[in-house]
C-alpha cells in the first residue's frame, strides 16, 4: 500500500489523529535538520530550530492549503527561522555567507564511517573540506545547494520556494556544483 501523502497526513492531524503529525516529523526530520545545519553550521542548534519549525507548523496546520506542497511550506518556515537565528547572532542579513574568522580552525568529521585511525583522519579532512567548500560558496549558490542536497527538494520546489524561474534554479545549481567540484577536487574520483 502506498504511504499516505503529506496532504492526507495533514488532514488526519486536523481530524484529531495527533500521531499522524509524528509521521510527518519522521518523514522530514532528516532533511530539515540537514538543511538547517548547512545554514546554521551547528548541529545542536539545527535540531533546536527544526523542533521549533515543526511546532510552528503544527500550530498553523489549519492554514495549510492542500493545493500547495507541504514540503515547500515547511522549508519556507525553516528558512525564516534560520534567518531569525542568524540575525540574533548579530550577523548581517545576507550573511548566509559568513566570514568565519572564528571557525577557521574548526574541524568537521563526516558522520559516515571510514574505520580505523586513518579512516577517521580522512573523515575529518573530508568533513572539514566539504564544510569549508560549501561555506565558501556565494550565498545564492550555497542556499540552493543546501536546499537540493541536504533538504532534498526537487528543482520545482526550490523554484517555488525561492520564487525563481526553473531555468535559473538549474543554472545556479550547475554553477554551484562546478565550484564545489573545483574546491573538492582532491576528494573526487576521476
Amino acid at each position, binding site marked *: 500500500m502506498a504511504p499516505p501523502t503529506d496532504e492526507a497526513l495533514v488532514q488526519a492531524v486536523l481530524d484529531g489523529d*495527533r500521531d499522524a503529525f509524528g509521521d510527518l516529523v519522521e518523514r522530514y*526530520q532528516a532533511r530539515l535538520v540537514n538543511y538547517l545545519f548547512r545554514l546554521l553550521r551547528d548541529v545542536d542548534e539545527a535540531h533546536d530550530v527544526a523542533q521549533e519549525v515543526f*511546532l510552528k507548523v503544527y500550530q498553523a496546520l489549519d*492554514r495549510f492549503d492542500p*493545493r500547495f506542497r507541504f514540503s515547500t511550506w515547511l522549508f519556507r518556515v525553516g528558512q525564516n527561522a534560520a534567518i531569525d537565528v542568524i540575525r540574533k547572532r548579530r550577523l548581517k542579513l545576507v550573511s548566509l555567507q559568513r566570514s568565519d574568522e572564528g571557525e577557521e580552525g574548526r574541524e568537521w568529521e563526516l558522520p559516515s564511517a571510514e574505520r580505523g585511525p586513518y579512516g577517521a583522519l580522512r573523515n575529518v579532512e573530508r568533513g572539514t573540506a566539504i564544510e569549508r567548500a560549501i561555506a565558501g560558496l556565494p550565498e545564492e549558490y550555497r542556499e540552493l545547494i543546501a536546499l537540493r542536497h541536504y533538504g532534498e527538494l526537487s528543482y*520545482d520546489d526550490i*523554484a517555488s520556494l525561492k520564487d525563481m524561474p526553473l531555468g535559473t534554479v538549474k543554472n545556479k545549481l550547475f554553477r554551484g556544483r*562546478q565550484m564545489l567540484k573545483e574546491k573538492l577536487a582532491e*576528494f*573526487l574520483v576521476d
Partner: protein
Amino acid sequence: MNGTDHTIYREWLDLEAEGALPTGDRRRLDAHLDACDDCRAERHRLASLHALLAESRVPVAPGFRQRVMTALPEPAWEARRASGGRWAWAGGLLAGLAALTALFFGLSGGRLAPGASVGGALAAVGDMLVTAAIAGAGLLGATWTGVGLAVSDLFQRSPGTAVAVALLAVFLAGLTVSLLRRPRAAERPVDRRR
C-alpha cells in the same frame, strides 16, 4: 579534448547526475561520451561529488521525533476552529434577527412613518449607542428601557433602514472572521502549480 564546445555536455552531465536529463538529450550525450574521455572523467567526478555530499549529511539525534511530539502544544487551530464556530453562530443569530425584522415589517406593512429618512435612522442608532453607554455606567434597568425605545424609534422611522442595519452587522461579523482566519503572508504555502 578536441575543439568541440563541451559546455552543453557538462550541463547535460549535471542534469544526468540529478536524473533530470530528457531522453533525447541523453542519447546525444551517450553518443558524445563514447568519443570523449574528458567528459567520461567529468561524469565520474560528478557522481563522486554527489556521493560526497550525501555522505556529509548529519544523522538526526535519536528520539528527535519523540522530543517534538512531547513538546506539541494544544493546537491553536482547535481554538481557532471553536472561535470560528462561535463567530458563525453569532453571524447566524444576527442573520436570524435580520430575517425576523424583515418579517415583522412585512406582516405589519403600511404602518410606516411617512417621510422617514436614512439620517433619521442613523440618529436613532446613535441614540441607541448612547443609551448602551449609559448602561455601562450601571443604569442597567434604564438602559434596557432606553434600548427598547431606541429600537422602537428605529422601527417606526424606517423598516428598510432597520433591515439594512441588521445586514450591516452580519457583514461586519463575517469580515472580522475572515480577517482573523487569514494566514500571515510570510508563512503562506508556496504555489506548486508553477
